[in-house]
């Protein structure tokens, strides 16, 4: 997904001279195509992420549209106070790009994991939170975020995420994309865990169910219109995310649904409230976190859903 980010940014920067990229000394050759025609707008901010966030806010105040880019924990939690005051409170159109989110860098350990970033960002007024599932979603949504001209957190993956969409559906910021209509059960997924959601839907289908599958790429603002409708249509709503089950996407849906009358039962799946370490791969880490189809099916079975 990071390759798609660099490619889309390069294309957009050709037509929009106000776009700036600040990156915290990562990416190696990733941004060479951008540097070829706009070297001065691809700015290595050094390994100084807090300063990078405030500098980006300052450049936005002067009319630029900056992106800040590095591995997720370093551009969400390490620099959180700079984001809160200089980007969110002062409402500056900085797009914060966290790459390798969730368990993308599972093997690098808890220093490089991010299970708290959605929680942090969605707690900030003025902030928008967008988690594309694959390169296609990134490509569809990124120009819309620039158009939004407001603080955004863009939570992206690393590389080689499987494409999750068939055809080229039009995606709209702030609106869910229903990938497969269904009944009784809705599976709502945000970000790069979508292939697991798809596998879960296949498994549920084999059990004779017909679940709805939804890409919930925009976590803030929540698509309340969809949820209002979902409340009347489903008995069970399942959320999936590669983030702590507390405070993230599932919590956002739960908070909304729980305050409506006669809502469906919620089933949130994500990282349990613990650090995940001693793992070799993202698949291993997901297994340790219980983010597998058998684990989820087991919970759903215990709860009488299947």
């Amino acid at each position, binding site marked *: 997904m990071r390759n798609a980010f660099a490619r889309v940014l390069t294309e957009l920067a050709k037509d929009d001279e106000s776009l*700036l990229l600040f990156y915290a000394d990562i990416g190696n050759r990733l941004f060479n195509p951008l540097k070829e025609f706009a070297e*001065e*707008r691809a*700015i290595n*901010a*050094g390994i*100084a992420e*807090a*300063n990078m*966030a*405030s*500098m*980006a*806010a*300052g*450049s*936005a*105040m*002067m*009319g*630029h549209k*900056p992106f800040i880019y590095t591995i997720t924990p370093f551009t969400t939690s390490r620099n959180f*106070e*700079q984001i809160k*005051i*200089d980007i969110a*409170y*002062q*409402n500056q159109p900085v797009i914060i790009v966290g790459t390798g989110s969730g368990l993308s860098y599972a093997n690098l350990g808890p220093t490089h994991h991010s299970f708290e970033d959605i929680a942090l960002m969605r707690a900030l007024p003025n902030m928008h939170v967008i988690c594309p599932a694959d390169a296609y979603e990134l490509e569809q949504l990124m120009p819309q975020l620039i158009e939004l001209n407001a603080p955004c957190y863009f939570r992206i993956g690393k590389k080689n995420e499987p494409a999750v969409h068939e055809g080229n559906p039009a995606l709209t910021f702030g609106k869910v994309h229903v990938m497969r209509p269904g009944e009784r059960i809705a599976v709502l997924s945000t970000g790069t865990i979508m292939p697991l959601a798809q596998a879960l839907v296949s498994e549920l289908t084999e059990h004779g169910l017909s679940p709805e599958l939804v890409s919930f790429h925009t976590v803030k603002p929540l698509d309340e219109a969809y949820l209002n409708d979902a409340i009347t249509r489903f008995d069970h709503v399942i959320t999936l995310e590669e983030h702590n089950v507390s405070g993230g996407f599932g919590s956002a849906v739960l908070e909304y649904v729980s305050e409506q009358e006669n809502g469906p039962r919620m089933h949130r799946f994500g990282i349990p409230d613990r650090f995940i370490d001693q793992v070799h791969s993202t698949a291993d880490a997901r297994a340790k976190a219980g983010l597998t189809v058998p684990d989820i099916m087991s919970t759903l079975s215990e709860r009488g859903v299947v």
Partner: protein
Amino acid sequence: MTLNSIAAQIRYTLCDVSSQTKTPHLGSCLSCVDILTVLYWRTMHITPNNPANPERDYFLLGKGHAASALYTTLAYRDYFSPTALYEHGQTDSQFEEHPGIHAPAGVETVSGSLGHALSLATGMALSKQLQGAKNRFYVLMGDGEINEGTVWEAAMFAAGKRLSNLVAIVDFNKLQGTGESTEIMHLEPLEEKWRAFGWHTMRVDGHDIDALEQALETAKSIPQPVCIVADTVKGKGVSFMENDNNWHYRIPTEEEVAQAKQELGIS
């Protein structure tokens, strides 16, 4: 009016506003009044009747707790009426104890959390350098404020980009919230520290109007970022406040304001 008499008027108003509105940080305000006076009456290209002039120079207050010093300077520089200053810290006032997004025209950014202003100004200065614009950026920081690591991140970046449109001024009053700044962290030799970070440095008496003016004029032709270390006295101008750190938080009584008025030569 001479700049010294303008500065005296600002100091008296700061004492009176603090007393009447029960807002603290008087000592921190008094140490930077001469610096602000020189910036706003001599150094910066500003147009108070058109605060949004895109060609203006920018002042960023790092030590946001000295907001009252900035508000009062702007008031006497005709951005708004000095009578408005007595709304300081009141509910729904533009003049919050730390400048917020509703601050009056002339206040360029939010402040209050230390160590943000130099980073913001560095981003602003970089943008203007890319745009080929001539605006200059002035940042005032406290000596306690430069404990913050982001200050030094910004310092390294700005020097790396040779941002010649950026000037940092350290209000070196030797006292921070709860003690002596040179003892709480190892600050000295401060101008050498900034020089080692790639900045052109000068050290001046932060209460000498002519020396400040000369240093700030010199800075305009230096082809790299400039740091002016200004030696100051916390509580400057009022004998019983000078170098007494209780005035970081204390509110003066009416009698104390009257004594300050007399000492400052305000009729």
